[in-house]
């Protein structure tokens, strides 16, 4: 019993450490004072300022678009890869796997600048195509992990049963594999979306001149000084993240636990 009390006590301290700065940030976005001074006075002033900041809104929309495309690419590529790799033996699979996790263990600054140098070697300017590729490379492992885990849980006898009942490969994919995989694909897509939406480093290196994304815009505002509308947009991002993670958690739970008891 004493153990439990200590356990909860410790957990709460850790959670305060994790959440206090974020909570303060969100509270401050509703504080009337420009410099976050106390006493706290409620105001939605900064949200109004935010929504009239065309540049920031455009940056946010661009980031959403980039993240959406990245997510779709990651899910399609990841699903194809996980389905295809089952044809290989375990040594080849291990090689594929190490390639997939490679971008996780290489600092993003290195990936970003090496892609920029690739552009230079090819004689190209920074462009959205390369930016998207960069985002796909760093978001891919997350999507693959979720989809791969689900596929591994799927008993291969399920597909065999389908062939056995007279369905060919395509019908089996359409009617059995895809429906069973879809919650994981959705969850993997969400994760890839969040990684991409939040990604500053790759965008920073690869964004075309004169363009911007939300993280780049936030970064330059922070460097520039303290702007309350950044509090507001950050709060929106955090709230959206919270929502999405909850959705993913529910998706994963139901997909992993509902189908197999």
């Amino acid at each position, binding site marked *: 019993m004493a153990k439990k009390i200590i356990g909860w006590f410790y957990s709460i301290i850790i959670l305060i450490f994790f959440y206090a700065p974020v909570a303060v940030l969100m509270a401050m976005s509703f504080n009337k004072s420009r410099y976050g001074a106390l006493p706290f006075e409620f105001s939605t002033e900064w949200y109004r300022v935010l929504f009239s900041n065309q540049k920031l809104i455009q940056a946010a929309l661009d980031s959403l678009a980039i993240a959406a495309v990245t997510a779709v690419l990651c899910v399609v590529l990841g699903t194809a890869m996980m389905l295809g790799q089952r044809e290989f033996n375990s040594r080849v699979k291990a090689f594929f796997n190490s390639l997939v996790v490679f971008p996780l263990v290489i600092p993003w600054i290195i990936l970003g600048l090496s892609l920029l140098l690739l552009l230079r070697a090819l004689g190209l300017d920074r462009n959205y195509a390369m930016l998207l590729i960069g985002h796909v490379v760093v978001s891919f492992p997350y999507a693959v992990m979720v989809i791969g885990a689900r596929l591994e849980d799927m*008993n291969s*006898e*399920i597909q*065999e*049963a*389908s*062939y*056995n*009942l*007279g*369905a*060919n490969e395509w*019908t089996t994919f359409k*009617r*059995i594999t895809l*429906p*069973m995989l879809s919650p994981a694909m959705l969850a993997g897509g969400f994760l890839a979306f969040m990684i991409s939406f939040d990604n500053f480093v790759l965008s920073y290196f690869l964004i075309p001149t004169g363009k911007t994304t939300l993280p780049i815009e936030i970064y330059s505002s922070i460097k520039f000084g303290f702007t309350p509308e950044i509090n507001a947009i950050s709060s929106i991002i955090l709230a959206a993240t919270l929502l999405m993670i909850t959705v993913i958690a529910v998706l994963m739970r139901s997909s992993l636990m*509902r*189908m*197999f*008891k």
Partner: protein
Amino acid sequence: MPFLSIKDLTKIYDGQRVLDSISFDVEQGTFLSLLGPSGCGKTTTLRVIAGFVRPDGGSVNLNGILINNLPTYKRNIGMVFQSYALFPHMTVEQNIAYGLEQRRLPRNEIRKEVAQVLEMVQLTGYEKRKPKQLSGGQQQRVALARALVIKPSLLLLDESLSALDKKLRVEMQVELRQIQQKVGITTIFVTHDQEEALTLSDKIAVMDKGRIVQLDTPVNVYERPATTFVAGFLGKANFFKGSVVEKHGDVYQLKMENGHVLPFESLRDPGVGTDLTVAVRPEKIALSGEEPEGTWIKGTVKFTTYAGDRSLYRLEALGQTIEVERQNSLGISEFKIHDEVYISWDKSNTLLLDR
């Protein structure tokens, strides 16, 4: 011409012959069990027939047609998987209808067929349930219904009962056999459970190390095992290894490796000078306090166990342990530890096996 004919089937995984030139025939309507320990190749044989495994050699003929190179989905072979492999995102009805949909049957006909097969497996009323809402036994029935509804030419069962608990398994065995006989479908059943194979089958193929060791009726496989492996795998047996040294009248003398000599009678003449193993099943041995007629050996009771309807004895004789099973007709064990007893058996129960 046999309905299913398998010739010289060979499969090699990582240099190991998982199937070592297997051949057997199955007549139409037969329930054949492939029985053997894990790794004997029984499941691989089944998966070759189903089309999931491509053999490295040999042929599979079904109803006179070579099906080796036919993809699974064109074979029209029903299969019940070990895990049942029900589609978790579909209802019972949808699971069963799946195969019929692949055959492009009209809607109303599908509905009729599904209702019929559900009635047969006694699951009417469960149409709208998802697999996870069913008990193990019910899932098993759905899997069976799904495999039968496509009117397959052959039914394959892969350890299909092993996930059920003992009582339910026995019930399902009876039901499975009844359905199989009613439908009259040729069935191949893979199992490692000898009791299950004995109760269900018309024929049993005992497999070991990628080969079929014996293919015969349950009675013959049990009563007339072809090898020591079969005798030991199906039920228990006492083995006496040695060579036949002489013959007095009807009685042979087996000089055993430990130096002792076993006298025995047999219906078949083993021939003096052959190396062989004499085997006898524990329940075929008679024990008595007085000297019986015919051939006998003497032993000492070392251990007894009371098992309700039977008593199990472990005796020492001829320098080895001999197991004996007796029915408890009087409700108590006949002999106690340290008792000296006479061990004998009818010559028809002497099994002569290779070494």
